[in-house]
């Protein structure tokens, strides 16, 4: 069960979204922003057919059908509230952002023509002209102001309220120009604006069930928890628009059922399948796997402010007893890269390759457990299928620990309510973090002393000041060095064990063309509908 119900982690999937597009303009300003992006991933590729896809000519027509893995009555078309992968897919079909991230992780212009700032504090956004909403109304600066200001209103309940707070003022200068003022300089603003939540909606919208946006598809049917049907938007501002005539999207929460639906030809794409289903897909002619290596990871969090996490030796012991190779090989069937307990994956240019993963060493682990005086005690670990592969990881750690006489009591709790009731709260629990476009966002969200999701309650003044320092730095090498040091600090000091970076695997029919690697998320960063075509 891969139901990510009320999964706040997933709610930030949007932040890492990028898109691949023909003919996008590049601005000098953006080259400066490269620092905030993520490098082209070596892992991201479409198995066996990447070159074909690039070479092929898109075909028009057909009805695209795809299935995600989670959906509920909480499904929404309000980008500010989007929290599930299915929400992002729908929003990507209906709306556009000011910027988007390309496959190299570089922010590109979408609804904005250019975004400029002299001091990285006051920003001027020049909007593309001739963009119309589905209802015929033209896009103006008031729409942008409305869309951005919504995130600051607590009544809206925006998922990115914490990030949006740095925006102190948004105003329309003229119908195509918007001015954004930040509390402090932040060179990453264009990257931040590429997150799904910052999609542009029409001024004054309160009822989002109509899904009026500027996107490549118009909404036809939207049944929360059931399905959505979209029709190609003939007036899309990008030349050509979508290739398919219509797009139907829904969720099949059962992994097997999702794979079977694909194999039986009912759908073109089954998102995020479990490693154990790969063999079936591979054995069937006409189907392929699309693998995306990104910064997604499931981590074991040991709170430093609670027993037994308050004993540093316990944490060290846990790090040694975690058999990362076995998790990578058996749990994830190779669809993962061994990690070194810090959140910046090799897909990022800021990844510190010097920092080696701790080798599996039961003897050292035993030594540290003994030193912490916990050997033989019954230590509860909360896990749930809500976090990808967390249950399997827990059993592997449990088994290794059992062999040195360490009694880890794995308690699986239901998916439902996991994120609100256990995550961040239990002394030892699992989390699942989706990729973020910049180390700044990752560290701010997860490791700064005041981070909202400080999973292990890691607090370090030195770390906090380094974070602020790096954020303002324009010297790329210096910035990389600081981020490198911060990675070491997290790996050594924080209570989060990140055993592997997990690849996302989408299974698709060979008829579906144009789906390309995206280093930051499956389904082309959830925006695939606009780019793929069906080769009948």
């Amino acid at each position, binding site marked *: 069960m891969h*139901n990510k*119900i*009320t999964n*706040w982690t997933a*709610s930030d999937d949007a932040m890492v979204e990028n898109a691949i597009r023909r003919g996008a303009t590049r601005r000098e300003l953006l080259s400066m922003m490269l620092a905030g992006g993520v490098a082209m991933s070596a892992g991201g590729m479409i198995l066996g057919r990447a070159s074909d896809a690039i070479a092929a000519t898109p075909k028009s027509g057909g009805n695209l*059908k795809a*299935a995600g893995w989670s959906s*509920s*009555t*909480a*499904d*929404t078309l309000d980008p500010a509230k989007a*929290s599930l992968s299915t929400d992002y897919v729908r929003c990507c079909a209906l709306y556009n952002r000011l910027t988007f991230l390309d496959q190299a992780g570089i922010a590109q212009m979408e609804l904005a023509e250019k975004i400029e700032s002299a001091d990285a504090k006051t920003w001027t956004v020049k909007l593309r002209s001739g963009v119309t909403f589905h209802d015929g109304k033209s896009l103006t600066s008031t729409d942008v102001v409305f869309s951005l200001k919504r995130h600051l209103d*607590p*009544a*809206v*309940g*925006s*998922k990115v*309220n*914490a990030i949006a707070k740095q925006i102190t003022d948004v105003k329309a200068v003229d119908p195509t120009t918007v001015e954004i003022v930040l509390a402090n300089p932040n060179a990453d603003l264009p990257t931040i604006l590429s997150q799904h939540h910052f999609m542009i909606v029409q001024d004054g919208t309160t009822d989002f069930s109509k899904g009026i946006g500027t996107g490549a598809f118009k909404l036809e049917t939207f*049944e*929360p*928890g*059931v*399905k959505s049907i979209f029709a190609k938007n003939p007036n899309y501002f990008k030349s050509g628009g979508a290739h398919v005539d219509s797009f*139907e999207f*829904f969720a*099949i*929460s*059962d992994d*097997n*059922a999702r794979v*079977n*639906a694909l*194999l*039986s*030809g*009912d*759908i073109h794409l089954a998102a995020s399948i479990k490693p154990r289903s790969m063999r079936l897909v591979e054995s*069937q002619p006409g189907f392929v796997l699309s693998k995306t290596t990104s910064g997604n990871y499931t981590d074991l969090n040991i709170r430093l402010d609670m027993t037994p996490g308050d004993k540093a030796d316990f944490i060290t012991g846990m790090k040694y007893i975690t058999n990362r190779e076995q998790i990578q090989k058996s749990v994830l069937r190779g669809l993962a890269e061994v990690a070194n307990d810090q959140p910046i994956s090799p897909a990022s240019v800021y990844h510190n390759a010097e920092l080696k993963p701790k080798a599996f060493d039961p003897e050292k682990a035993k030594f540290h457990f003994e030193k912490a005086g916990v050997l033989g005690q019954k230590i509860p670990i909360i896990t749930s299928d809500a976090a990808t592969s967390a249950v399997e990881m827990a059993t592997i750690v449990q088994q290794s620990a059992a062999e040195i006489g360490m009694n880890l009591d794995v308690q699986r709790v239901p*998916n*439902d*309510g996991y994120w*609100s*009731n256990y995550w961040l709260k239990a002394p030892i629990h699992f989390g699942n973090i989706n990729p973020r476009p910049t180390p700044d966002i990752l560290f701010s969200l997860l490791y700064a002393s005041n981070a*909202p999701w400080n999973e292990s309650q890691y607090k370090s003044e030195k770390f906090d000041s380094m974070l602020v320092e790096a954020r303002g730095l324009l010297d790329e090498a210096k910035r990389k060095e600081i981020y490198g040091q911060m990675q070491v600090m997290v790996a050594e000091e924080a209570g989060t064990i990140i055993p592997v970076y997990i690849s996302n695997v989408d299974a698709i029919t060979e008829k579906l063309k144009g789906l390309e690697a995206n280093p930051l998320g499956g389904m082309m960063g959830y925006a695939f509908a606009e780019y793929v075509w069906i080769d009948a």
Partner: protein
Amino acid sequence: MRTFVLNLIAHRLLIAGLTLLIVSFAVFFATAMLPGDTATILLGQAATPEAVAGLRAAMHLDEPAVFRFFRWLAGLAQGDLGTSYVNNVAVADLIGGRFVNTMRLAGITTLIAVPVALTLGITAAMFRGSLYDRIVTILTIGVISVPEFMIATSAVLVFSVYLKWLPALSFANEVTSFWQVLKVYAMPVITLAFVVSAQMIRMTRAAVIDTINTPYVEAALLKGASRPRAVLYHALPNAVGPIANAIALSLSYLVGGVIIVETIFNYPGVAKLMVDGVSTRDLPLIQSCAIIFCIGYLALITLADIVAILANPRLR
């Protein structure tokens, strides 16, 4: 005599009403006990204490549970199922279409499963002790001992993935013709029919055997009636009561127990809706779904009682 029967039926309805009241009470307080504060969950990371307090007041969460219960009950009585906490849509709208789906699936399954189960149960009773009877008995136990997700998954693999005869999903394909209805509903219906038939077969067989051993069936045989006639014409009408009860109990499963089938075939029914409700702590939705299941159950049971009353001339 007529008024007597009407009184009996009125009594049954009264009992059903009373049960429903108890159920609504139980449902309300059971769901109210779910951990996790609704307001906090709804507000998510924007959950400042003031916002939480405000939302709680707006949703009447700050009132004692008893008040909320009566407020809810009064709403129910007026047909107002409340508003979903999660997306501010009237619960009735959320349930509406799903309810039709659930009823359609249940209805089609009933049309298939009941005649098959009755035929098997009655014939097994008719030829009690024969090889046929033994096979039916063993098969029914065999079938109910296979988890339904196993039946469903195997069916999908065979008929959708390998043979490609039937779609793997039940709603993904637009249904326009009768033929398509057959194709789309075939697998969920067969899976469910497997699950609900076994008990019906067992109970029908037992009920008919009970009446076969009566003097009036013997008398019919001694009139020269064939065995099928003795069973169908004489034994069966007297077994209507217990059979109706068994059918009602089995069919009640089709209203709320089909969550696994709904999940595997991605069929948008009420059971899945309720699971959604549990995940999102959408209390009005959970409560309404639970009440719908209870009404379904009580309606079936009461209907079975009434059928039993009407089938018995001594009460008529």
